[in-house]
């Protein structure tokens, strides 16, 4: 029936009805969007990365000079990269573990759980606003709330300077861990998807609560853990606002995020823009993020349990 109908049609209407044509028609928005808003700008920025460019005068081609300078003599680049890796490699696992723990605790049948879920998620809505910046400094200042609480337990800590060179990065790590809400939501829904039968089966096999957790819950969650880990790792490498608003890289660049360094080069508060240099920095970061993501995907088969 369909075949005979298709035969009757001809020319345009037949062509448009084909599966492959429909595929392109439906994908068209993305194809256009990708070209217009991703590919063209990316190619532009790749070109700029080989130029000296201050936005106000046309770019001049200088070959690999930006890259050479970055890799051979830019100490701030090395520092910012180190800081960002530290932040990403410590902050991300902590955040994911925290999100998982809270999700497990809230995966409970109770009327109050809806409220709890909201309360634990809310900090993630406000993101990096001015208010958070003010607040975070206040919490961690030498006579702030954190010290007030901890000095009761450890008197030697009273007046501790959280914004000094070692601990300052932790102030930012704690902030990112605090905003674990979206990972938590994803864990919560994954927990709901674990079939009950699996628990019942292991119960019959005589497994206790902990064994159930280790042998059923965790393996079943590994795909979700992987998803969150990838998402959050990328996000940490690209974190911006927290650093910009709270520490602005101080002291001695010990909290300088890579993206902030890049932004400062592109849009400096004083002096000319170094857009070419910033574009080179951006491309280096793009390569790093791609490699890290690839490594994560490579590790996937080793520990992720696919049902």
């Amino acid at each position, binding site marked *: 029936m369909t075949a005979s109908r298709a035969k009757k049609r001809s020319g345009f209407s037949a062509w448009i009805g084909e599966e492959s044509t429909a595929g392109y028609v439906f994908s068209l928005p993305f194809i256009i969007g990708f070209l217009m808003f991703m590919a063209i700008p990316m190619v532009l920025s790749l070109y700029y990365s080989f130029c000296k460019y201050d*936005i*106000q005068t046309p770019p001049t081609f200088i070959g690999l000079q930006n890259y050479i300078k970055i890799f051979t003599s830019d100490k701030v680049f090395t520092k910012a990269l180190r800081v960002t890796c530290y932040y990403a490699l410590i902050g991300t696992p902590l955040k994911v573990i925290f999100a998982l723990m809270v999700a497990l605790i809230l995966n409970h049948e109770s009327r109050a759980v809806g409220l709890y879920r909201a309360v634990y998620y809310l900090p993630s809505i406000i993101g990096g606003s001015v208010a958070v910046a003010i607040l975070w*400094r206040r919490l961690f*200042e*030498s006579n*702030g709330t954190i010290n007030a609480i901890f000095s009761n337990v450890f008197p030697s800590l009273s*007046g501790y300077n959280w*914004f000094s060179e070692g601990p300052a990065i932790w102030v930012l790590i704690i902030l990112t861990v605090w905003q674990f809400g979206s990972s938590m939501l994803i864990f919560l829904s994954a927990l709901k998807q674990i079939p009950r039968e699996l628990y019942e089966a292991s119960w019959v096999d005589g497994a206790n609560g902990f064994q159930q957790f280790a042998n059923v819950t965790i393996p079943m969650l590994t795909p979700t853990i992987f998803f969150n880990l990838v998402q959050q790792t990328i996000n940490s490498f690209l974190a911006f606002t927290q650093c910009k608003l709270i520490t602005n890289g*101080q002291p001695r660049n010990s909290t300088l995020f890579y993206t902030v360094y890049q932004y400062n080069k592109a849009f400096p508060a004083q002096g*000319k823009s170094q857009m070419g240099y910033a574009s080179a920095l951006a491309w280096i970061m793009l390569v790093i993020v791609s490699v890290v993501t690839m490594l994560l995907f490579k590790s996937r088969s080793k520990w992720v349990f696919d049902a």
Partner: protein
Amino acid sequence: MKKLLALVIALVVVLSLSVLPAMADGLNVGTYDPASAGEYEMGFGWWGNQVRDEVTKAAADFFTENYPNIKFNLNSQVWNNYWSLMSTYAANNDLPDIMQQDYAFIEQWAQAGDLLDLTPYIESGALDLSKVPQNIIDTGKVGEGIYAVCAGVNAPALLYNKTLTDELGIEVPKNITWDQFAEISRKVFAEKGVGAVYGEGNSENQPTYYARGLGYTAFWGDEGINASVEQMTGYYQRIMDAVAEGWMFDTDKMAGVNLTDLAQSPLVYGTTNDVRTWAAFAFSNQIAAFQTAANADGIELGITNWASDDPVASNYMKPSQFFSITTDTKNPDLAVAFLNYLINDVQANTILRAERGVPANGDVAAAIADEVTKVDATYGLVVDYLAFVAENSSPIFPPLPAYSGQVNADVIQRLTEEAHLLNPTVTAEECAKDLIESTAEIASEY
């Protein structure tokens, strides 16, 4: 009901009239008649804050009230965003007709061809600068042309906690020297544990002031810093000594306080004495905002010059901000008329209430004094201080070279932090050498 409405309207009219200054015969707009411009939308950009936004908007509105054919597209940003945005507009040939400028950047902007030379308008009388002192007019000069007009005057000012120094029986002298400053700091620190911070650390302000005290008018030369390694060693040694003595905040301690947000500056905010300072290296027009923040703790602020071995050589009067007309304007005559209004019109300046610094037009500054003091109690203090500085200062340095911004960001900040370390890993001489060599390298790239 109708009667009530009429009454309300009458009341509103009376109230609004009493807020606005009495109408004179039109506005002071120079020789061009804005009414002849036809329908026009004038772009006006500045960096600012809530108060500045309000008063500037009011001044623009007042202009529109008199010339209903002129509307405004007002664009206010915070400092950091302002410059990056304006440079992108510049690249797009889309700058506002009139933009706020900073002394440091005029030269770069004029050389890039973004600003209009105002000389012909001054000569024709369209822009009347006869009441503005010549040395102030000259600050807007780049080469032979005048590219910017001073919107208000200020000067570097050491703002200090007068309540505290009074309590300790300390008299903070005028023309304070570095040794006097250090002596007071030691005493304040010994008795109260309150320290000091030597400027914001990421600009040339402090080293410039220091170098001027040694006889250099300008800190920056064409190829680098004018002062010698030996001389700049003295600058870093001074910091290291003070940190070692304990009264100057070290790097970690500086990171622990907020030096960029004025309301949280350690001069006016801090839960305990060890995170407070007794003085701040600021500018005279900032005292109003500092005082507002200080009121919460019942602190009264005093004002004197930044400490220097030779304060008269170091100190200077500075145009706090400028107005420039951009080359992207479609009606330069109209923009000049509006600029003339901002500089010379008493009503406009009453509305603007010297928020951008004391008006450069002396007649206007005097005419608005009473009104402004009503809304800003520190205005008198500032005017007195500026009168003192006028007698006890040297000509200001020329506009900054284009490379200076990058040196501030990449070199000066880094070295300030090194020199302020509690246990420094480099010597003062190494800092000075680094400063001079790195600056020369950056300068050579421009």
